[in-house]
């Protein structure tokens, strides 16, 4: 276990020693303040309180989306940069299995996404208090937490996708490109029955709020199952390829 901890420390340092490491955090603090200001100046009555503002903004189609994009950018290089910089050679000639090395990278990707989510949640809530106050409104803490959960699921699925593409393509640019393209088209709905088995309509679990559904015939448990299956596929593909690939 101590060995795995050390691998994770390594991965965290590789992320956090970068000069631009704090940029996403700064953006995710400034963005809610700005959005709050704009919404408040356009229509101050739109949100009753900080709780209303936060539970809406943190959804995958609000500020949650910006959070996901920044998490993807951070994730894209975790494996592919090792190939790009050539450091993969020094990384893989140690007495550690490739599986353990890749697993430590994935755990750190999840930790990174979690820290971004926590910072964003606090920033959005703070912005809500600043512009809309704590009184009134309908929502409470539980609504905020639920929105955070929806947002986090969306982010985790996307960083897992980016993680896999990063392994398969070994190119940071291509990884960001493909994943961003996926984000831009994931709101499209194709009204055919097969489409519910595609990843995209299952991504935003908040669609089930108030007895709704993204498409007819879909349920919350169906979507959760689909997401789990896709995540497993992504990870399986990533680990199998990483373990077997020749470093030429």
């Amino acid at each position: 276990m101590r060995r795995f901890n050390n691998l994770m420390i390594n991965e965290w340092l590789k992320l956090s020693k970068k000069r631009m490491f704090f940029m996403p955090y700064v953006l995710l603090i400034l963005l809610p303040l700005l959005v709050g200001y704009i919404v408040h100046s356009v229509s101050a009555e739109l949100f009753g309180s900080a709780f209303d503002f936060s539970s809406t903004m943190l959804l995958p189609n609000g500020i949650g989306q910006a959070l996901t994009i920044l998490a993807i950018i951070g994730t894209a290089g975790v494996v592919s940069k090792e190939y790009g910089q050539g450091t993969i050679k020094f990384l893989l000639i140690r007495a550690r299995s490739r599986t353990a090395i890749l697993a430590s990278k994935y755990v750190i990707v999840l930790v990174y996404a979690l820290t971004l989510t926590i910072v964003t949640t606090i920033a959005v809530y703070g912005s809500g208090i600043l512009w809309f106050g704590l009184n009134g409104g309908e929502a409470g803490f539980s609504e905020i937490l639920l929105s955070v959960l929806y947002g986090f699921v969306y982010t985790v699925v996307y960083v897992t996708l980016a993680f896999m593409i990063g392994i398969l393509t070994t190119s940071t640019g291509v990884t960001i490109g493909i994943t961003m393209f996926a984000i831009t088209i994931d709101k499209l709905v194709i009204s055919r029955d097969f489409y519910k088995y595609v990843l995209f309509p299952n991504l935003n679990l908040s669609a089930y709020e108030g007895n709704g559904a993204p498409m007819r015939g879909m349920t919350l448990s169906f979507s959760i199952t689909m997401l789990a299956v896709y995540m497993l596929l992504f990870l399986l593909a990533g680990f199998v390829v990483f373990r077997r690939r020749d470093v030429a």
Partner: protein
Amino acid sequence: MNQIMMNQMTMKQQNVEPGKEAPLVLQMNGVSKIIKGKSIVDKLSFDIRKGEIVGLLGPNGAGKTTTIRMMTGLIRMSEGDVMIQGHSIRNDFKRAIAHIGAIIENPEFYPYMTGLDNLKQYQRMTDEVNDERINEVVQLVGLQEAMNKKVKAYSLGMRQRLGIAQALLQRPKLLILDEPTNGLDPAGIREMREYMRTIAEVEGISILISSHMLAEIEQICHRAVVIQNGKLVTVTKLGEEQEAAAQVKLTIRVDLLQSAIDIVEGTEIAQLNGMDSTRAELTVTLLDSNVPALVTALGIGGVGIYRITELKQSLEEDFLKWTGGNLIA
């Protein structure tokens, strides 16, 4: 004079030491790499014993890098196995690789981290490497002053040194260096050579150096493994050992060419191979041990000697002979 003798003695001893009794550090057992039906490396077998410095020679595209990447587990073997200290790279990778330190092609580090941070990355991936060991290897490669600078500010020579520090960190039994002098200037190459000698002496480890720079290999290695088109061409001994009892070919420049020729033809110990009257030079073949006798004979005969040059068949000539010119298949 005494010191030179001493040096030669120690050199000799070193050459003798990795003899038959020294334990095997690396065994290549019929290793092949087949990509799309084509053998990149074909049933390659050779051994490295403790304390040996071995050169892996071959023209571009001979399969040197593929071979080294298979030894270090970066590339899968199609056939055969590599044993390091008796552990299989194929089936017992973690225990086998723990005895290897390597630089494969260019030493590449995380450029935004300092040299020390980079070394610490590898310390955390290795069991039983403490901070003291880091200081030790840093001192061995002479990077103390640069440890807190970011690697992106390092010169290629400094990165090579950090690469060596990285490779030595886990006290390997075998150091693998792939084209270690690539991109270094003459001073850097010389420095590198000195490091390798120091490392072999101080750390007492075997070194495998891949290169197409023949002069490099010739100067530092005890043995050379020559491969071409992925196949073993020959394994040859280098340096003093080879010369000890052998015949030498000398070119001697004299003042009186004809008298010199008469003297050489009059003795039993030397054979005249040829002469160059415009340069007043003659070429003779004789046993190494008979050289002083010939010089004395020339002196007694009143022949003045300007210079004596050994006509050495260089590794380069051998290499071209073995590999059949510069054909790249």
